[in-house]
């Protein structure tokens, strides 16, 4: 091994890591995996009690091709590389892929006039297989589309994935191959004296390199470590609707609108679990932790969804959710290495993070100019399949019976999610790992059984222990 190569975990002196990744979102998980597989001793520091608890808990679950990314940017390259690596590794990790393709649909003549430019952008982004379609051809592919289609093109490579099993798999592979994860570990500060000495709420951490993948708090972390931040997070909220599985037959492709400067717009697409998803909105806000739902906005989303697919009016909305994207004051990703401080910021991954994560991890690895000493025979975890496109656990013997009926989640799946290298620590974490209570009844049938099944087994219990009764004096007039 060359003298300055990344040492393998076994060679590492106790207590020092080669790399500390701050933030266990999809980007942090992918980076942790990349460095671990390249032989580094890695620790992931997450301030929440559970992984994927920030921007990564809510997105549209699409594996993009990058056809509409700004040409020549890191974002475009990272999506391209990330998409390719996902296809390469997904089977070994047990990750789903619904290769349905997308239709970009213009709903006005003005939008239709912009389609040729978008096709040219796709070609410039090396997405050569886009197919321009007339309105009639688009309707032939998607007969449920509402009136007003003015033109479209098809992007065959756009696909649907499970937005949580993918990052869980990246992190689980890192952990299986020697990385450490510290939860409830907020980075309060740190100093660099050749090595980083980080002060966290779980004690001190010593590391050679710090990668800031702190998402919605990326600028705060940069400020704490470097004294000032080169970027400022401007959270952008997205609200979503999820329709019942009966609605999934209404759209075969991912239905994308013609994007604007600000947002990719309202997407209608199936999910890997066989539902139909509509969203997101794009709403600027100050708050970095709470993504509040708004009834009127959701009703507007429903109206938009019914304009795109009129038959949706006869289908049930089974879930509503909102997420925050870590946008910044600039449009692009904010990735920057500060070699003299052994620091790399991966900020402003405001969208497309799920598609770009593996590509960003490759890029960040290249920014750290140590030669790799890859693990000779890395271990590959296999994640339980939750997608409707492959065999589910309920179809196999010994599953313990179905507990969550709407999503057909078995007792064995729940038990598995509470154990293993990356066990669920919160109820939200259990939902992301198994889909319990995420179906049409939202816990009407299985809520009580789950409270029993998870009692004493989650770091943050499913039900809060009620403290003092609320005081009516706290009411607003």
């Amino acid at each position, binding site marked *: 091994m060359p003298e300055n190569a990344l040492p393998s975990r076994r060679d590492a002196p106790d207590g020092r890591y080669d790399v500390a990744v701050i933030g266990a979102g999809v980007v942090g998980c992918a980076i942790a995996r990349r460095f671990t597989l390249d032989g580094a001793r890695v620790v992931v520091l997450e301030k929440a009690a559970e992984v994927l608890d920030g921007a990564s808990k809510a997105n549209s679950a699409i594996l993009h091709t990058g056809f509409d990314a700004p040409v020549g940017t890191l974002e475009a390259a990272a999506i391209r590389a990330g998409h390719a690596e996902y296809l390469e590794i997904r089977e070994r990790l047990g990750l789903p892929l619904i290769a349905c393709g997308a239709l970009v649909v213009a709903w006005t003549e003005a939008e239709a006039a912009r389609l040729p430019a978008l096709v040219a952008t796709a070609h410039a982004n090396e997405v050569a297989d886009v197919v321009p379609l007339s309105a009639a051809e688009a309707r032939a592919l998607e007969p449920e589309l509402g009136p007003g289609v003015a033109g479209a093109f098809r992007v065959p490579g756009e696909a649907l994935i499970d937005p949580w099993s993918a990052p869980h798999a990246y992190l689980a592979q890192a952990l299986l191959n020697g990385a450490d994860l510290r939860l409830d570990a907020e980075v309060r500060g740190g100093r660099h004296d050749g090595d980083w000495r980080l002060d966290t709420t779980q004690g001190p951490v010593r590391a050679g390199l710090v990668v800031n993948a702190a998402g919605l708090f990326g600028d705060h972390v940069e400020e704490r470590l470097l004294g000032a931040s080169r970027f400022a997070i401007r959270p952008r909220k997205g609200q979503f609707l999820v329709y019942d599985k009966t609605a999934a037959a209404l759209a075969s492709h991912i239905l994308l609108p013609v994007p604007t400067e600000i947002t990719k717009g309202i997407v209608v697409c199936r999910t890997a679990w066989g539902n139909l998803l509509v969203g997101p909105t794009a709403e600027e806000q100050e708050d970095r932790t709470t993504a509040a739902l708004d009834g009127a906005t959701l009703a507007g989303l429903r109206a938009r969804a019914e304009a795109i697919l009129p038959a949706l009016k006869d289908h049930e909305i089974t879930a509503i959710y909102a997420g925050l994207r870590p946008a910044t004051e600039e449009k692009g990703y904010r990735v920057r290495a500060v070699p003299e401080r052994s620091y790399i910021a991966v900020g402003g991954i405001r969208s497309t993070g799920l598609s770009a994560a593996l590509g960003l991890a490759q890029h960040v690895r290249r920014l750290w100019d140590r030669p790799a000493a890859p693990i000779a025979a890395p271990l590959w975890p296999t994640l339980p399949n939750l997608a409707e496109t492959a065999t589910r656990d309920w179809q196999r013997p010994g599953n313990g019976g179905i507990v969550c009926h709407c999503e057909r989640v078995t007792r064995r799946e729940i038990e598995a999610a509470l154990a293993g290298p990356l066990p669920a620590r919160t109820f939200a974490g259990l939902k992301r790992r198994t889909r319990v209570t995420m179906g049409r*009844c939202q816990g009407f049938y299985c809520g009580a059984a789950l409270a029993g099944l998870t009692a004493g087994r989650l770091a943050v219990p499913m039900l809060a222990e009620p403290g003092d009764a609320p005081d009516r004096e706290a009411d607003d007039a």
Partner: protein
Amino acid sequence: MSGPDLAIVGAGPAGLSAAIAARRHGLDVVVIEREGEAGGIPRHCAHPPFGLREFGRVMTGPAYARRLAAAAREAGAEIRTGTTVVAIEPGPRLVLASDAGAGELAPRRVLLATGVRETTRAARLIGGSKPAGVMNTGTLQGLVHLEGRRPFLRPLIVGTELVAFSAILTCRHAGIVPRAMVEAGEAVTARWPAALLPRLLGIPIWRGTALVAIEGERQVNAAVLQGADGRRRRVATDGIVLTGGFRPEATLVRTSHLALDKATGGPEIDQFGRTSDPAIFAAGNVLRPVETAGWCFREGRRMAGFVAASLADALPDPEPSLRLVAADGYAWVLPQRIVGGEGSREGALQLRVTRPLAGRPVVATEPAVRGAPFASRPERRLSFPLAALPAAATGTATIAVEPDEALR
């Protein structure tokens, strides 16, 4: 593999009573229940009154559920708990899931009795954050009566259908004191004397008030309410019980070859309980939102008789039929198809109004038929005698309310 004469999907009041009756008709019966125990919703409605007509005494829900399940077993029905029907196919053929994995069953007849559930927070598009402490009555009752938990201390009860008062009884049992009942309409939905209960317990009912947002991070800490005048106020509370807004748990119908009635949200049936596949019947609250356990019990028993008649080839042909469509003022009508001649006109149509209404029903057959005048509110039971429908009528006819303000 030859299956049983009858497979019943769902072991609630309708399914179990159908099982008992079907055994009395000499049929070989399997009841398939996805929960670990038979009994359905009454299992966690730990208060009276259940069972007065069925067993001649007032019982709590769990006692009634146990009694029904025991009676079905004594009658010789096989109850398979922990087994889910995941699909219904023509044949009929049922695709099953259990601890043993996937399986199947090919009975001669199927009776769907999968019941109802309440409308969720998501389907109501209620804004705000997503803390713990927001649930339907069914979840609350399961937590309190099956798990011995107390998920909050001072919740708001949203809605005033009968089930909202059941939620109050559950709260009382657990030492939970609701802050208030919240009703978007101008009046309490459930019939008198239900509204006496909150008054006796000192729980205010806020009428003309809608829940628009929920606040709190880990646990609910406030609710944002909006009055009829559009003004909003924030109320401190640690839980939200979303009651009622029942809808049939008809996923099996929606994902099968069976015709669904968008008005009820359940399968379309004729007066013999036959769905659009004459080998598949339905009974109980999967047919419509929503009736009492006692009503479902009697409905299950009746439909079991029709299943037996069907196996003896003694039912009229499913076509031609008169198809009824709920119109102006009616939310739904059940059954949706009427078949056979004069000899097949026992019983009545079930109906509900969409809003507080007074008037008389009019069926637009040739000639049109009018029924007795009434005044009613949503969620309240209404009927129309089948015998009043013209015996020879076929095709499609609306049934609507001819308003009459003088009746209010």
